[in-house]
């Protein structure tokens, strides 16, 4: 096993841990805000680690740029959508009270 494989393996194991944490959070947390918190943070980190695991296996610069773009996209849109979901959940819960 080369050093690149070792790094990939470690990254993938860590990534799976974070994906597991995110999914358990999504299923087990008591309300939508805590679920949102658990899922969006953990998943973005998990994907980042998978991106890293992929990056060390590739020899091409253009592919590295593409991988970086994928992670950046997911982080930026993930953060924005998390914000929008939280607002949506807030307005939904205030609708119920009214």
């Amino acid at each position: 096993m080369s050093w690149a494989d070792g790094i990939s393996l470690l990254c993938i194991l860590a990534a799976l841990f974070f994906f597991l944490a995110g999914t358990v959070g999504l299923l087990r947390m008591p309300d939508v805000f805590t679920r949102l918190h658990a899922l969006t943070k953990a998943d973005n980190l998990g994907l980042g680690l998978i991106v890293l695991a992929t990056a060390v296996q590739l020899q091409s610069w253009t592919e590295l740029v593409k991988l970086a773009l994928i992670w950046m996209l997911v982080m930026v849109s993930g953060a924005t959508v998390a914000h929008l979901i939280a607002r949506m959940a807030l307005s939904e819960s205030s609708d119920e009270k009214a």
Partner: protein
Amino acid sequence: MIHLVDVTLVVTLLACAWLSLTGRDLLRSVVLFIAFGLLVSLGWARLRAPDVALAEAAVGSGLTGALLLSAFSAMERARLTTDEVGLTRARWLALGLTLGLGVSLGVVLLSLPSDHPRLSLHIQERISQSGVLNSVTAVLLNFRSYDTLLEMVVLLASLVGIWAVAPFARVWPKAPSTPILAALARLLLPLMTVVAGYLLWLGADAPGGAFQAGAVLGGMGVLWVAASLWHPPWALRMVRPLLVLGLLAFLAVAGVTMGIGKSMLEYPASQAKTLILWIETAATVSIGVTLTLLFLGGYPAPPEQS
């Protein structure tokens, strides 16, 4: 172990489809349909058909999902239930049609000779004359380009159909109360243009091409509309000619090839790549604009009427 992946994928797919069709909550069904599209795309990737996986991810899940969401919001605004729009009865019709299609596809598939991969051999033999290296693009834009020409017509006809029957669409929802959405749109719109261009260019020798690039442009349009970015009243007049750009490019090439004594859309081998690239570029723009306007679900009303 890879078989285990496939089995999990298929079981999850079927669960998604069943739950989506049988549930009573309409929005839940829409979300399950979106999930279904994402899983189908993974399935196409497993079947080593990245071209279809790209198209399914972009059109099947992304844009169709957005389309269903906008239809859902229109229904809610009009306070319509599924029974009032006849969805419950249409369900049986849909089941019948899908079963019919499924059975006939199965019959065709089983009647194919299994040990003669002749079609792909034919394509590989001729691919050097097609102007491109990707066999899917060679088939879509050269060997069977009249199919793609007709697909462009179908896309346009579906938009015209919607415009003919649907009421005016309220194009621009009220400006979002958060500035973060506009910030995201300002960042993503240029980025998506680059990605669409990349997919278009890639189509010559790898999976990609006009439909995938056009779908990314369509996603851009959805984001643009959802973020209420910019809406001058003359924008529609500028956009309408773009709807037919792809079709016009196709017809122009068809006319010229017939004019120089070849059969329709038979490109001269030396010019094939240039012609394909021009047609694909024009088609990408048309597909992107058409998908955006399909998403609106009706002829766009001028801003003051909304």
